[in-house]
């Protein structure tokens, strides 16, 4: 269920403000692509345009195309609700629904698509999704407890289970480990390594070691100054970006000279 993402000359606006300018890149299926760059460079904004989540913010709009296996997300008549069912998202802070149990959280997305589901079928899906998120052994005895009772790292893996339960084509992760301790971070990174076999994964991260550990390709974003739009500076294989980048700004950033 993994698909290729092609972005052609994409601009993102918040009202009159141009936040991201002229991004063109291709994300291969069954790979992990990392977006790195200083704060405010538009990498999270750009990530959100890949499942039209930026539209939640009033006044946000894009110019350009995003093709997922050839079909444009921004084509006429494309429903953002259906886009988001194919392109799942994991957020910076773990956000399981506090009013639902662990089991209900995993099934939340599926219930939107397919209301009538036999109990045995639902049980299988819960187990499969939690296995897929490496959480099953920790929670199998308390599936009816609230999801908010888990630790931060477990909550984030629950969110990943919830996202993969609907079998999306692409999984977007917006700094998924920035609120977690190093051990939980490691658990998530191992998980990303496994998920790569089935999904196209795009991850935004502030942690350059993380980008070099988990990703196959890396995109470096930067801004010229406050009020200027963010741009894609360089996009290449991860080892090239970290060892032998072609652009000076990338080298300065990855070597810690700024940012």
């Amino acid at each position, binding site marked *: 269920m993994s698909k290729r993402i092609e972005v052609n000359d994409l601009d993102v606006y918040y009202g009159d403000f141009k936040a991201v300018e002229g991004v063109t890149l291709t994300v291969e299926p069954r790979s992990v692509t990392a977006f790195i760059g200083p704060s405010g460079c538009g990498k999270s904004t750009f990530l959100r345009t890949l499942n039209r989540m930026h539209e*939640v913010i009033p006044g946000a709009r894009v110019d350009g195309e995003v093709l997922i296996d050839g079909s444009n997300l921004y084509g006429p008549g494309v429903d953002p*609700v259906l886009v988001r069912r194919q392109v799942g*998202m994991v*957020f910076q*802070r773990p956000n399981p629904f506090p*009013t639902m149990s662990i089991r209900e959280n995993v099934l939340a997305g599926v219930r939107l698509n397919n209301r009538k589901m036999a109990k045995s079928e639902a049980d299988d899906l819960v187990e499969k999704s939690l296995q897929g998120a490496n959480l099953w052994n920790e929670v199998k005895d308390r599936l009816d407890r609230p999801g908010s*009772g888990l630790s931060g790292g477990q909550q984030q893996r629950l969110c990943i289970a919830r996202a993969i339960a609907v079998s999306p084509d692409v999984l977007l992760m917006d700094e998924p480990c920035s609120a977690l301790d190093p051990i939980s971070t490691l658990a998530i990174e191992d998980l990303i390594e496994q998920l790569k076999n089935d999904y196209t994964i795009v991850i935004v991260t502030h942690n350059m070691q993380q980008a070099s550990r988990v990703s196959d390709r890396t995109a470096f974003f930067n801004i010229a100054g406050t009020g200027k739009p963010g741009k894609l500076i360089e996009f290449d294989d991860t080892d090239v970006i970290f060892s032998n980048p072609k652009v000076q700004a990338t080298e300065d950033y990855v070597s810690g000279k700024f940012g």
Partner: protein
Amino acid sequence: MTSAPARPARITAKKRLGDRLFSGGATTAGALILAMLAAVASFLVLQGVPAVTADPRDMSILAGHENFWTYVWPLIFGTLWSAALALLMAVPLSIGIALFISHYAPRRIAQGLGYIIDLLAAVPSVVFGLWGANTLAPAVQPFYTWLNDNLGWFPLFSGQVSGTGRTILTASIVLAVMVLPIITALCREIFMQTPVLHEEAALALGATRWEMIRMTVLPFGRSGIISATMLGLGRALGETMAVAMVLSSAGVVTFQVLTSTNPSTIAANIALSFPEAYGLNVNVLIATGLMLFAITLVVNSIARWVVNRRKEFSGAN
């Protein structure tokens, strides 16, 4: 050789003047509300007991009734029935308005609408009473006749339809309009507190706006909706003037909402009977007030219990 080591003196926080003043003030305020409640409750009990214990024949207000309980039962029923009808109309409407303001309306319209709702809360109940008796009742009467003609088989709409429209249903509509602002205002505040994080989680799963509201906003606001409803219920149960002016009452127990024989409510009955009451009759009215007090207490306890039952899923942790 050695005795047990002396326990170190417990370190106490230094008491600063501001802390002491503030904690003293807060404690006093907290104690005051309990004292006031106790004062009201003891007044009601002390003054109400004679009405129950004395011979019913000594009290002219109980004429035609066996004892106090047969007198108060239709009033209790009328109070609960009219308040329930009012909430049945007001709560869904309030939740709808609150959702519109918090999640659907453009910001400018939302602000204006919120302001109008708050204004509605400032209208005195006697004005609502006048409006209900003189404008609403004649206006809805033809509709009542239609309901009775076409849906008369339904028990609520059966019986001899009222010619004036001053029925318990009209009183409940007035009550609904009166409790609407408080429920709406509270629900709006609660809906706007829904964490963006959870709303985005639902949207990112491919929820439509309505599904997002059903998955996050409503469950998150559940305890708040119940609290708001309880406040509205408190006002509906205790409302005096509007009901007294609108309702033509007959002291019966009936679920028919369109007839001219309606149960009165405790508060309206006190207001209407008090000017002519003397001696033990005053105690009878106070005893009915005690019943209202008890009903409110029970209803609120039930609501508290409902809220606490699913505390760990409330989102507050």
